[in-house]
C-alpha cells in the first residue's frame, strides 16, 4: 500500500477555495498509482450552494466578457506553461488508456478548446447569445408578449475521464451558460479539472466565473456525500457522463426538481460503400481515413469506429478483397503519428482473450490481422460483427462484409453515436434511416474523432439543456 506521502495529491476546490487537508488515499487506475484527496463528506455543507441568489453575479456578465475570460484562461493552460497541468498530465500517464505522446499532445493544445471564435459560434448556435445576455422578446399570435432568457443552473457534473478535454469542455459550458458547477472527477482522470480550477484561481481569484466552479473527488456512490448534495434545494441538474455504474449512483436521487442530462456511453461505427473496393488504388485512401477513425486516440473515445460495415459482398471474392483492405487498414493504423495513436497502454484482458480464442477456435469464421498491443483488424467471413463488438478497443477494428448497405442500417441501435461514411453521397442517402434507427451523428469518413462547434452531442443539445429557460409574459395591464 502506498502511504499518503507517496501519492499524487488531488485538492478539493470549493468556489475559489483550495482545500488540501483531511485526505483519504484512493487506489488509482491501472494498479500503478494512488492519489490522496480530501474527504469530501467533511466539507459537504460548504460544497452545497443552497442559496441560488448567489448566481446573480454571473448574470451581470456579458457573453463577450465570459469569452474574454475563457480566452485568457486558455492562454495559461497548455502544458509547458502551467505547473498544475503538468502534474495532471503526469498523473494521467498512470491512469489513462491513452499513451504519454497522445496525452502530451492533448495537454499542449488545451487552449484550442477555448478558441473565442469557436466558443462564440457554439454559444450562438446552441443557445443564442441574445438569450444569454438578456430577455428576447417575442410577440405571440394572441397578442401576448413573451420574453425569454436562458439562466444558469446549479449542477453537478459527473465527467468522463478518458480524455482531459472532457473536464475543460465542462468548465467552458458552465461558464457560457452561467451555471454553478460542482465537478465530480473520475478516478481515471482525478486531476485535470482541479488543475484548470487552480489556474482560474491564480488568474482571477474573485471573478464570478472562478467562484462558481467546484471540483471534488469522491468515490461514486458514496452516500455520505451524495445524499447531502443531490437534493433540489442544492442543485437543479445533474450532467452525467458514463455508464451504468455512474448513472446507477445518481438515478435514485432524480426527483421533481432535479433534471438528469445523461451523456450515456456510446459506440461508433463505419459504413463503406462498394466503390471503395474496386481495386488497390481505390482502397488505399479509404483505408487511411478509416485508420484515423478507428485508431486515432487509441480508440478510447465513444466517437471511434469499432465495427466497420463494408459493401464488398459476402462471396469469397468479396471477403478476400476485404482481407486485403484489412491489411491496408492495419498498416495505416501502425503508421499513425505518435501524438494521435500508439500501442495499447493497458490491454483489455477480456478482449485480448476473445481475439486469441477466435484465432485458435474460430478460424473458419474470422481472419485476424495483427494482434497484441499493436492492435488488430478482425475480418468477419459472414455479414455479422464479432459477438464481442461492444468491447472493441486497443485499436481493434472488426470489418464486416455485406451485400447491401441495408444490413448496416439494420445494425444501428440507440447505443450508436457516430457513423463515419464513405462516400459522401452514401451518407446523404442513408442519413434519415440511420437517424431513425438510433444513430446520432453521421460524418465524413476520417473525421469521426473531431467534434466541431455545432453543440450537438448524443442527439441532444447539452449546452441548451444546461440552461434554465425562463419566460416573462405580458398580457397587458388588468
Amino acid at each position: 500500500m502506498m502511504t499518503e506521502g507517496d501519492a499524487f495529491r488531488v485538492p478539493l476546490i470549493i468556489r475559489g477555495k483550495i482545500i488540501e487537508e483531511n485526505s483519504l488515499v484512493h487506489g488509482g487506475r491501472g494498479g500503478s498509482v494512488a492519489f490522496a484527496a480530501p474527504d469530501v463528506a467533511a466539507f459537504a455543507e460548504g460544497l452545497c450552494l443552497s442559496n441560488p441568489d448567489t448566481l446573480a453575479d454571473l448574470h451581470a456578465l456579458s457573453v463577450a466578457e465570459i469569452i474574454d475570460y475563457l480566452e485568457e484562461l486558455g492562454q495559461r493552460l497548455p502544458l509547458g506553461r502551467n505547473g498544475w497541468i503538468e502534474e495532471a498530465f503526469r498523473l494521467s500517464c498512470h491512469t489513462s488508456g491513452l499513451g504519454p505522446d497522445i496525452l502530451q499532445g492533448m495537454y499542449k493544445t488545451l487552449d484550442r478548446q477555448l478558441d473565442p471564435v469557436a466558443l462564440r459560434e457554439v454559444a450562438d448556435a446552441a443557445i443564442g447569445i441574445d438569450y444569454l445576455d438578456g430577455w428576447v422578446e417575442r410577440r405571440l399570435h394572441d397578442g401576448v408578449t413573451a420574453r425569454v432568457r436562458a439562466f444558469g443552473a446549479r449542477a453537478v457534473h459527473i465527467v468522463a475521464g478518458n480524455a482531459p478535454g472532457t473536464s475543460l469542455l465542462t468548465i467552458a459550458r458552465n461558464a457560457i451558460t452561467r451555471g454553478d458547477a460542482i465537478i465530480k472527477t473520475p478516478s481515471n482522470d482525478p486531476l485535470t479539472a482541479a488543475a484548470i480550477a487552480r489556474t482560474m484561481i491564480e488568474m482571477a481569484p474573485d471573478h464570478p466565473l472562478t467562484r462558481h466552479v467546484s471540483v471534488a473527488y469522491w468515490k461514486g456512490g458514496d452516500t455520505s456525500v451524495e445524499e447531502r448534495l443531490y437534493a433540489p434545494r442544492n442543485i437543479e441538474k445533474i450532467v452525467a457522463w458514463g455508464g451504468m455504474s455512474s448513472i446507477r449512483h445518481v438515478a435514485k436521487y432524480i426527483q421533481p426538481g432535479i433534471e438528469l442530462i445523461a451523456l450515456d456511453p456510446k459506440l461508433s461505427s463505419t459504413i463503406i460503400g462498394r466503390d471503395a473496393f474496386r481495386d488497390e488504388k481505390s482502397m488505399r485512401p479509404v483505408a487511411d481515413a478509416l485508420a484515423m477513425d478507428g485508431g486515432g486516440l487509441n480508440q478510447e473515445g465513444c466517437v471511434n469506429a469499432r465495427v466497420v460495415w463494408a459493401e464488398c459482398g459476402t462471396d469469397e471474392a468479396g471477403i478476400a478483397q476485404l482481407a486485403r483492405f484489412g491489411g491496408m487498414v492495419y498498416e495505416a493504423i501502425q503508421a499513425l503519428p505518435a501524438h494521435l495513436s500508439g500501442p495499447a497502454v493497458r490491454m483489455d484482458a477480456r478482449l485480448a482473450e476473445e481475439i486469441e480464442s477466435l484465432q485458435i477456435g474460430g478460424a473458419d469464421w474470422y481472419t485476424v490481422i495483427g494482434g497484441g498491443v499493436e492492435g488488430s483488424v478482425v475480418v468477419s467471413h459472414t455479414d455479422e460483427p464479432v459477438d464481442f463488438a461492444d468491447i472493441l478497443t486497443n485499436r481493434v477494428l472488426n470489418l464486416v462484409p455485406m451485400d447491401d448497405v441495408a444490413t448496416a442500417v439494420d445494425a444501428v441501435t440507440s447505443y450508436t453515436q457516430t457513423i463515419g461514411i464513405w462516400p459522401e453521397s452514401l451518407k446523404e442517402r442513408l442519413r434519415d434511416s440511420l437517424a431513425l434507427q438510433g444513430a446520432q451523428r453521421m460524418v465524413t469518413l476520417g473525421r469521426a474523432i473531431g467534434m466541431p462547434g455545432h453543440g450537438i452531442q448524443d442527439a441532444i443539445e447539452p449546452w441548451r439543456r444546461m440552461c434554465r429557460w425562463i419566460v416573462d409574459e405580458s398580457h397587458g395591464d388588468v
Partner: protein
Amino acid sequence: MGRRNVGTTENIRHREKIMPEAGFTRPVDPQRFADHPEEMYWQSQADSFAMPAAEVEQIQLHALRRRFEELREKLPPLRRLADEHGLTAISQINDAAVLLFKHSVYKSYPVSLIENNRFDRLTQWFDNLTAQDLSGVNMAAGIESIDDWLDHLDRECGVRVIHTTGTSGKLSFLPRGWVDGTRQLRSTRLAQQPLGSPEPHDLQSVPTLVIGHRRAYNGYGAMLDALVDDLYGGDETMIVPMNPGRLSADVMSLAGRLTAGGNRAETARSALSPAIRQRMDELVEARKTAPERRAHFFDTIIDRFAGKRVMMSGNWSMYDEMMTAGQSRGIDGLFAPDSLLLCAGGTKGAVLPEGYRNAIPGFLGIPVLSELYGMSEMGALMPKCSAGKYHAWPWLVLFLLDPQTGDPATRSGTHTGRFGVVDLSYETRWGGILSGDEVTMTFGKCECGLDGAFIADTVRRYSEQEGGDDKITCAGAPAAHDNALAFLAGIE
C-alpha cells in the same frame, strides 16, 4: 428421434447399464499410468495422494507429451496454439503452460449460428474441439434448438456437452470428453469423499437432494444423470429436485441475447419461434414464484429427510439459505451424520453471517462439509485438507501463471497468480485450461503431510478485483451487459 421423457423409467441413457457398485475403485496397474493417466481415477483416494511428488511429476511429463502428441493432429485449435508459440515438443512440464486454452475458445463460434438454427455448422465448429468423430452426425434429424442439439450429441454421438453461461450470455460448449461413461460417477465419488476418510459405501439407497433443476447440461446435471443411470439403476425417484424440469440452454441463451439487444430486443423477440417464446415466458413466470418454491422445497426437505442419510451439492450461500429456513422452524442437526454433502464455488458473492463455516455443518448435522475447488473444465474437483488447502489429484497438472505476462512460475515454492491446469484424464479433448482465478499455489509439502501441488483457500476472480472502481468513460454499451447478467443470475 423422440424426446427423452424426463422422470420416467424410460429415461435410461444409451450407456450400458452397470452394477450398483459402479464408481468404486478398480484394480489398477501403476506401470500404465504414464501412458494411461485416466486410469489413476480408479485407484483409491489414499493411493492417489500417497504417490510421491517426484514420481507424479515424471508420470505427468510423460503423459503430457503423450496427450499433446495424440491430440494436436486431431484438434486444430491445439495445433494452432502450439504453432503460434513455436512449440513442437514438450521437454519440461512448464512448456505446456502456453497450451492452456482460454475459456472463450469454447465459445469462439458466431452466435448467429444459434440464432439461425445452423446446428450443422455449430457441429462443424464443435468438431474441432473433440477427437470424437462428429462428421457423420445426421443434422437433418429435426434439430431445432440448442436443447435438441445437446440431446442429439449425447445420445447419438456419445458426447456429453457441458455448457456454461459467459459474462455476455453467450453459451460456451465444452465436450465432457470421457470415453468411459462411468467415469462421471467416479468423479462424483471422488468429490463426495472428504480428504483422508474411507470410500463411502451403500450409496445406492441414499437419495440425492437437488436445489435446482433435475436436468441440465452442466457439470452438475452430468453428475445427476450418472447417479440415476449408474448408481440408482435408473430409479429417478432417488433424485429429489426442487425443479423437476430442465434448465433449458435455449432459454439461457435467449435471455442473454434479448437483454443484450438494447432497443432491438423486441425485434429480436418477434423473430423467435412460438415454442421458444413460450419457454421464455414460462421461465419469466417461474422466476416470479421462485422464492415461494424455494421455501416450499426447504419445507419438503425438512419434512421428508430429517435424520436421514442424504447426498447433496451446493455452495455456502445455498446452505446458508437452508439453514435460515430450517432455524426458523427450530431445526438443528438436520441430516444423518454420515450424509455426503459437498460445497464448491465459495460464497457466490454473498456476504454470510460470521461463523457460518461452523454453524452450517452443525445445522446440517454433519461433522464436516467437504469443500472443493475446481471448474467445469476439470473432471474431478480438488478436495480440501485438514490444513485448509486444496490438493491436486495426480492427473491434474497445475500451473501458476503471471497474470500479465502469462509466464509460468517455477515448480517449487509458493506463488500467487492465475490458476491453470491440464487435466490428463481427458482422452478426447484437450484438458488444458486457463482460469480467471487468482490463487496462491505451493509446489511442495503441506502442513497436512501431503506432498505435491496445492492451493490456499484465498481464491478470487480477477474480474472482481478489477471491478468496483470509479472509472468513467464515454465509450461503451454496458447496460445491456449488466441486464443480461442480472437476468441470468435469476435463472440458475
